């Protein structure tokens, strides 16, 4: 039933950063769009696996382990002659010497809505900001990060309780269909609608620092703290805090709708969960945390630190 002339299928080269792109690579390869795969800064295991798969499928492969190796990219592209180059979390900025292969040929798939969430970790930022929806944005690339003309933002709902890990997996799976949709668009469209980014609503987020992942009990309400904890799990292990002068990371916690009369950051009670007072008269119940002694449940923590009340940071 499908009518599809394989001889005229567009050739797409995919530049990626690791396993986040695997579902997209599999689907694009299955649909015979891929002519080459380039990986930047990947682990040896992932590079070996991709190289093996590419060889078996007769697809070009190249690893770009550092900025210096990027000097070889243009010659490689010239050799493969792709119709388009897709970037999925590729870690290096592509310089003009590479983009000059064709400015309407490079498309980046940004795992966050643009122009509102520019930067390297939009998944962290949307969770931290308690958004209910994120997006994968397909945009043409220029020599600045995340600033080229937008083709579309494909929205994805954020479920309550989504962590960085859960949302990353969801986006990785959705990325497969979005890149295939883009490939089909390139295959069938007579022109690709696109528009410049609205700079008045743009925001660039730098890579999160300790100050971004640190719980400030005096300023953050309970919802904000839970959002930060989810946004830090698992890439930062958890959200940073201080307890008994020791640096800890809170990995799993939930909202406790119980008022209190304590200072924000005080341990109100410690049973199966460590219940902490928040500034909005709510509490958060910590279930799992990481200390210098290892990752543990709240109950295990209670045995190690039998102090009924204390104040965090």
């Amino acid at each position: 039933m499908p009518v599809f002339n394989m001889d005229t299928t567009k050739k797409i080269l995919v530049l990626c950063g690791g396993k986040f792109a695997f579902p997209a690579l599999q689907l694009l390869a299955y649909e015979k769009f891929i002519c080459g795969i380039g990986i930047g800064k990947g682990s040896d295991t992932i590079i070996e696996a991709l190289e093996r798969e590419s060889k078996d499928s007769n697809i070009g492969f190249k690893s770009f382990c550092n900025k210096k190796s990027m000097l070889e990219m243009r010659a490689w592209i010239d050799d493969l002659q792709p119709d388009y180059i897709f970037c999925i979390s590729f870690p290096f900025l592509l310089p003009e010497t590479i983009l000059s292969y064709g400015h309407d040929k490079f498309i980046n798939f940004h795992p966050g809505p643009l122009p509102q969430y520019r930067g390297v970790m939009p998944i962290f930022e949307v969770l931290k900001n308690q958004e209910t929806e994120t997006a994968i944005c397909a945009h043409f690339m220029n020599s600045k990060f995340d600033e080229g003309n937008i083709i579309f933002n494909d929205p994805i709902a954020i479920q309550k309780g989504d962590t960085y890990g859960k949302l990353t997996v969801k986006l990785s799976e959705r990325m497969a269909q979005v890149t295939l949709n883009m490939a089909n668009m390139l295959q069938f469209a007579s022109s690709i609608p696109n528009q410049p980014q609205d700079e008045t609503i743009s925001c660039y987020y730098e890579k999160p620092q300790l100050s971004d992942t640190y719980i400030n009990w005096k300023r953050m309400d309970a919802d904000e703290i839970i959002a930060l904890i989810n946004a830090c799990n698992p890439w930062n292990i958890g959200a940073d805090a201080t307890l008994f002068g020791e640096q800890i990371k809170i990995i799993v916690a939930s909202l406790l709708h119980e008022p209190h009369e304590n200072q924000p950051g005080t341990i109100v009670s410690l049973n199966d969960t460590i219940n902490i007072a928040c500034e909005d008269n709510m509490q958060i119940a910590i279930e799992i945390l990481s200390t210098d002694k290892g990752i543990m449940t709240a109950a295990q923590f209670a045995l190690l630190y039998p102090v009924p009340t204390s104040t965090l940071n």
Partner: protein
Amino acid sequence: MQTIGILLARSTYYQTIGFDLYEGLRSGLKHLGRNDIKIVTENIGFGADKQQCYRSAEKLLLEEDASVVIAYIGHRMAQLLRPLFLAANKMLIVLDAGANLPQEWSACPNIFYHSLHNSLGASLAAKQATNDGYTSAGMVTGYYDGGYLHTYSISKSFEETGGTISFNHATGYKTEDFTIEPLKNHLEEFPNSALLSLFSGDFVQWYFKGIKNSFEEQNLPVYLPPFGFEEMMLSDTEYPSNNIKGIAAWSKKINSVENKIFLETITNTGRIPNLFSLLSWESAAITLKIIELIDEHKNNISLIAVGLQSFAFEGPRGRIYFDSKTNTSIAPLYNASIIATNEGKCEVQIESEATGVFEHFEKLTTQELNNSTSAWYNSYACI
């Protein structure tokens, strides 16, 4: 002047499908007082050619500047058009037979599905069979109809309600290949089995003829989904036996003011009202709501989608509203049976309104497909 685009499919056995879809929309808009709206059509063949579908939609959006596009296509083709509508910031109303189950029900604010719910009806028809006491069933379909995942919903529903699918029979799609003879052996081995039957168009006629010729007076228990109750086809189909029932999406016998108006209006245009004109007639109300929302929300698609999710209206088959998780319309479904006309042809009899439609739909959308896939891109019943 506002412009609406409609992608029209064609079908060998529903030769008037394009005219029916167009007339339903035109008459629906006129009935709602908007015959000032320009309708632009594009042909998409059987709805299977990606290039043709994409280019047709692109033309309606970019050349005709259509405010809204309506298309009789399936989920897979809608997925192909998704980036185009996202990029163009325009709304697509998919007129969906509901024969397929999508691999994912991801809601896109730009795409709303207005459905006849064949898979959902198939699922409820299977439940009827178990309620009637059948614990064994055979799934009977053809090469074409069997390629859609209503096959999965009907068999899964029968199994979940305690039944066992004892046999499957999928016949060919050419006249000379079409046979139900293997059912004789199956029914000898598994007597007292219900026949969960999935056919559309001419195949319904051929199937009923086969039952009449091979199983006369045996009154085999046959259960049908909505497309098995398509009245235009049934009116020319020989009545086969006394035990054919299932779930209908609509009938000219539904007794309501809205249905009476629809029937009279379409009949006055010289056309026979059917499932296709019904679907596009109803889409007129959805389209006008979208146009109103476009104006109200200044083209902000997210807000338009939220507005449409809370929209409900009375159509010929009853009250229609949207499930906000999937942007799919929900309409009443009807317990129905096939009766004979004085001329010995088939006629639909509406028994009652089916209960728990929305709950069943929700269940269907969360059901794992267990790696079942469909390769059919065609708009359903378009071959």
